[in-house]
């Protein structure tokens, strides 16, 4: 699991079965200092996140397990909206 920031949305009319009605968001993956750790990615939203939200995601096969139905081709899912990042050593805050 990892942190990310929602920076946009993706609209796709033709989707694999099981993905109808799922919201797709563009997310920048971040570390705990809120520094970018990799390329932007598209993730399925399960928590009604919105543009600009700091969120956390799960990747790999576990991403699909956050959805219902779960046997869908998804490899990143937003599973929480972050209220606060508390990392005392570097004072990182949201």
């Amino acid at each position, binding site marked *: *699991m990892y942190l990310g920031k929602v920076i946009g949305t993706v609209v796709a009319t033709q989707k694999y079965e099981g993905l109808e009605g799922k919201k797709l968001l563009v997310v920048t993956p971040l570390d705990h200092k809120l520094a970018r750790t990799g390329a932007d990615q598209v993730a399925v939203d399960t928590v009604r996140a919105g543009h600009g939200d700091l969120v956390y995601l799960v990747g790999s*096969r*576990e*991403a699909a*397990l956050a959805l219902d139905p779960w046997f869908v081709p998804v490899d990143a*899912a937003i*599973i929480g909206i972050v209220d606060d990042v508390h990392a005392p050593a570097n004072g990182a805050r949201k």
Partner: protein
Amino acid sequence: MKLCRVEGSVTATVHHPTFDGRKLLIVQPVDETGRAVGDSFLAVDLVQAGAGDTVLVNQEGNGARQLLKLGAQVPIRSLIVGVVDAVDHE
């Protein structure tokens, strides 16, 4: 399993139901000397770890599902499964 240092915690009121009541910590992978290697990530704590602790992190979904015993549909991938007392190395 990965050797990591706990950097802090993350709070999230809105989350997937499997995360109800679970403590989510920020872990930074480290080498045997304690030097950071790679990017930090988040892990669910099972062993009452805290900031500054060196911990063992199981970063693999099937292991997580077996440990949590919540059935097959658990979107949790990383678990803190041990607090490290000492690392001996050459």
